[in-house]
């Protein structure tokens, strides 16, 4: 493995007595697409801010591009692109000016920044919005503009904190497509998400984070292999009866999880488990066989679902 662009060892961030990040370690290789998957409040954003050299760590070691963020904040930030969780585009400036002004913060010459801004507007599919006011853009457009802004300095690493939270499915897919292109071009991506499908789509490797610690690490496929079955059978017997029925499922599936609204049966062959179930005289109101996802991994690791 080539020298990592980010290396964190026992990283801790405390707010008074509360440890938002409680001793996490990970490395990100150049060109890799790395994800932090976890529920809200897991410590993902705090980790991102420390990596982004805007938040001082409480303890542990952190190096970004071989530099310590405590001493070399501006140096590190000159090589990063940051897409924060909530848009902080400048609503007093028009779309194109947002890019130009941001480029100037990196000390880039105005002529260069102007040309780059036009390229990025094309990349973000916002060419016809160049003169629009930021507030007139849709949520998806704002996100794309934020990503364009983060690319103004040709960053070595792009940090994305919950890039598609709050977007409708179509806007998410457009955004994923843009991010996938960046990945193909070799940009290192680090993203946080609580959407398992996003993590599966975009991440080569990820860590599952909960309560400030890392629960598991690996590629999406490896994590699913390790912590879940190939398929999941979801059955609903009605919220009153789910728990009662669960007691009668001995021998069905590798493992069974009872959620308030449904029962999850983990198995390599979901259809076969459903047949065995009906043979016992258990007839669910609805049933669904699907492939295992990171959601199941998370449930297995923490006993909670990702989006509550």
């Amino acid at each position, binding site marked *: 493995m080539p020298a990592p662009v980010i290396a964190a060892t026992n990283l801790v961030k405390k707010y008074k007595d509360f440890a938002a990040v409680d001793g996490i370690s990970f490395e990100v290789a150049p060109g890799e697409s790395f994800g932090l998957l976890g529920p809200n409040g897991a410590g993902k954003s705090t980790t991102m801010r420390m990596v982004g050299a*805007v938040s001082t760590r409480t303890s542990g070691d952190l190096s970004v591009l071989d530099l310590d963020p405590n001493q070399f904040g501006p140096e590190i930030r000159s090589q990063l692109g940051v897409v924060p969780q909530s848009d902080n585009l400048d609503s007093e400036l028009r779309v194109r000016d947002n890019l130009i002004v941001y480029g100037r913060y990196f000390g880039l010459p105005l002529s260069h920044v102007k040309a780059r801004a036009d390229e990025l507007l094309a990349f973000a599919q916002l060419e016809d919005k160049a003169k629009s006011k930021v507030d007139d853009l849709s949520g998806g457009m704002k996100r794309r503009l934020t990503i364009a802004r983060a690319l103004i300095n040709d960053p070595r690493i792009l940090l994305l904190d919950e890039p598609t939270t709050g977007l409708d499915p179509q806007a998410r897919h457009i955004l994923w497509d843009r991010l996938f292109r960046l990945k193909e071009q070799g940009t290192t991506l680090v993203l946080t998400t609580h959407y398992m499908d996003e993590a599966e789509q975009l991440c080569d490797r990820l860590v599952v984070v909960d309560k400030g610690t890392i629960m598991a690490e690996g590629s999406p496929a490896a994590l699913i292999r390790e912590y879940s079955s190939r398929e999941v059978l979801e059955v609903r017997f009605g919220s009153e009866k789910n728990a009662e029925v669960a007691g009668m499922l001995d021998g069905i599936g590798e493992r069974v999880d009872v959620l308030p609204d449904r029962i999850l049966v983990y198995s390599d062959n979901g259809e076969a488990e459903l047949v065995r179930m009906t043979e016992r005289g258990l007839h669910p109101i609805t049933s669904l066989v699907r492939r295992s996802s990171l959601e199941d991994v998370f449930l297995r690791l923490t006993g909670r679902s990702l989006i509550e």
Partner: protein
Amino acid sequence: MSEQARTGAVKPRRFGGWYVAEHRFRVMRSYLQTVLVTGIGNPFLYLFAMGVGLGSLVSQNLGPDAVNGVSYLQFVAPALLCSAAVTVTAEEFTYPVLLGFKWNPTFYAMNAAPIAPGQIIDGIVYSVIVRLFATCGIYYVFMLFFGAVPHVWGVVSILVAMLTGLAFGTVVMAYVATIEQDSGQVAMLMRFVLLPMFLFSGTFFPLSSMPWFLQWIGWISPLWHGTELSRVFAYGASEPLWLIAVHVLYLAALFVVGWAWTRRIAARRLNK
């Protein structure tokens, strides 16, 4: 790997504050009309109303060199100049700061780029200095036009007014930078600090003609110190040397302390 990063931060480390100022100028361009209208309209209206209007009433009753040995217009003009500077800073050091930390948190975006928190504050100060210079310069031209400056050294009062505005404004900025929950503090500040300061800082009548128990307002008011100082330059008002020194030091101290203090607040607030 780190070589590229070191090169990338050279210019932001050196000029970061100016990049932020550049941002402010671009934003100001969106309210350029307001800047121009107030910059040109205010001196005309105030000098005409106070100096010529009220002034003629004063000179009818007390003679043409009624106050401090000069005409009322000449007495009031340097004070109005300083007030204009304070008005600019009361605007530029409040809403943009509240906005950048809270309502449209662009300061966080700047800080995610290689700009340090202190440089964000520097940039605001630089941009305000430029706007102050323009505003006070225009005001001074109007003062000349109205014949309100008998003294050739009067031009120095432009700098005095700028310093007055900065002394008041940076301290206010430090306070505004600490506001996490906005419940209209800035509007209160305008009403209960700026307005009384404007009225009771020896602007329209000498501080000594106020009852003694109100005179402390003048002593703590940067506007009074600035006004007194600018009168020395504008028409040679007689002021003991020690008091001139007090005026200069007090204004400079507020400016420097307010600026440095805001830098610290910004550094703490952005590093979460």
